[in-house]
């Protein structure tokens, strides 16, 4: 077995590894589509997810009667089930009902892209809500007392002091979530979306070069994650300037 593999790689008629890898560059359009889809899915879901997460975190911290337990249940269910199953549930599961197929939502729910966006948004909102909740709970008591002492309402205290302080505090944890969301987005390729892995799969289907295609996909993810870490390192430098020792 091993001999067959080695001879396959060494035989001239299949070309060199380098030669076969050049094929990837000739297919750059396919991989560009992949990168665009991955970035769009992750980016949009992160933005919307975060907008949903803020009120959810506040509801949890404030222990708003009924809503708080509802949010807790939502977060528990979303965090307790695999993203892949959630995506299958939305994409394959919901179409079982005729009521869904007849409703206006069907225009979106039959498109894998919108299903993936919905699933990712719901998923990231739950994780971000938990991160933000931790951030709000970690705001020093003195900052909150300062708000009360100058007569701020709860709303303006949240808007002007507590949330900005919490956002800054959760930045490293949120950076982690962004990277995890990027990794998790590979499941989009299972519902026929051409994301980065989807591009590698299609490349493999056309040229039967699994190794080169998926290697290229891995490199693209590596670049994406590298860019994300750079962005967060930059943000951390800016937002934690006041914490640096003065010269």
């Amino acid at each position: 077995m091993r001999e067959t593999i080695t001879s396959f790689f060494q035989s001239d008629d299949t070309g060199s590894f380098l030669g076969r890898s050049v094929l990837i560059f000739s297919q750059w359009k396919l991989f560009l589509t992949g990168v665009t889809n991955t970035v769009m899915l992750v980016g949009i879901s992160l933005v919307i997810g975060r907008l949903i997460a803020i009120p959810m975190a506040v509801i949890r911290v404030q222990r708003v009667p009924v809503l708080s337990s509802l949010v807790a249940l939502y977060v528990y269910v979303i965090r307790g089930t695999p993203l892949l199953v959630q995506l299958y549930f939305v994409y394959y599961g919901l179409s079982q009902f005729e009521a869904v197929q007849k409703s206006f939502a069907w225009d979106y729910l039959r498109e894998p892209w919108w299903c993936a966006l919905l699933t990712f948004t719901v998923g990231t909102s739950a994780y971000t809500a938990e991160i933000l909740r931790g951030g709000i709970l970690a705001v020093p008591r003195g900052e909150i007392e300062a708000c009360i002492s100058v007569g701020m309402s709860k709303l303006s205290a949240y808007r002007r002091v507590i949330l900005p302080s919490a956002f800054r505090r959760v930045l490293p944890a949120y950076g982690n979530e962004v990277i995890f969301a990027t990794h998790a987005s590979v499941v989009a390729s299972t519902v026929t979306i051409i994301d980065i892995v989807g591009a590698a799969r299609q490349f493999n289907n056309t040229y039967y070069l699994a190794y080169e295609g998926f290697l290229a996909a891995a490199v693209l993810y590596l670049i994406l994650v590298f860019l994300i870490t750079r962005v967060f390192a930059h943000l951390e430098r800016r937002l934690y300037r006041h914490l640096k020792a003065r010269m």
Partner: protein
Amino acid sequence: MIRYALPSFTNNWLTLMKTTALVSIIGLEDIVYTALSAGRTSQKPFVFLLTVLIIYLALMAISDIVLRLVERRYNRGVTFPQGRFHA
């Protein structure tokens, strides 16, 4: 040492458990794979996938409870500061 490591271990355990769903993509017959093919044959994917969601949720709940018990056992005799006031 175990006392400090347990929360991270719990996290890791739960994440790993959810990641196992991915094996269905490369054709291993786990519950996701089975549910998907059952859903295809019976034309009722919703029922089967909902079952899978509930099974995963149950698995997570059980591990959560067990690991919390373990954590409590290792935290015996440790006192924690009181809960703090909040706005």
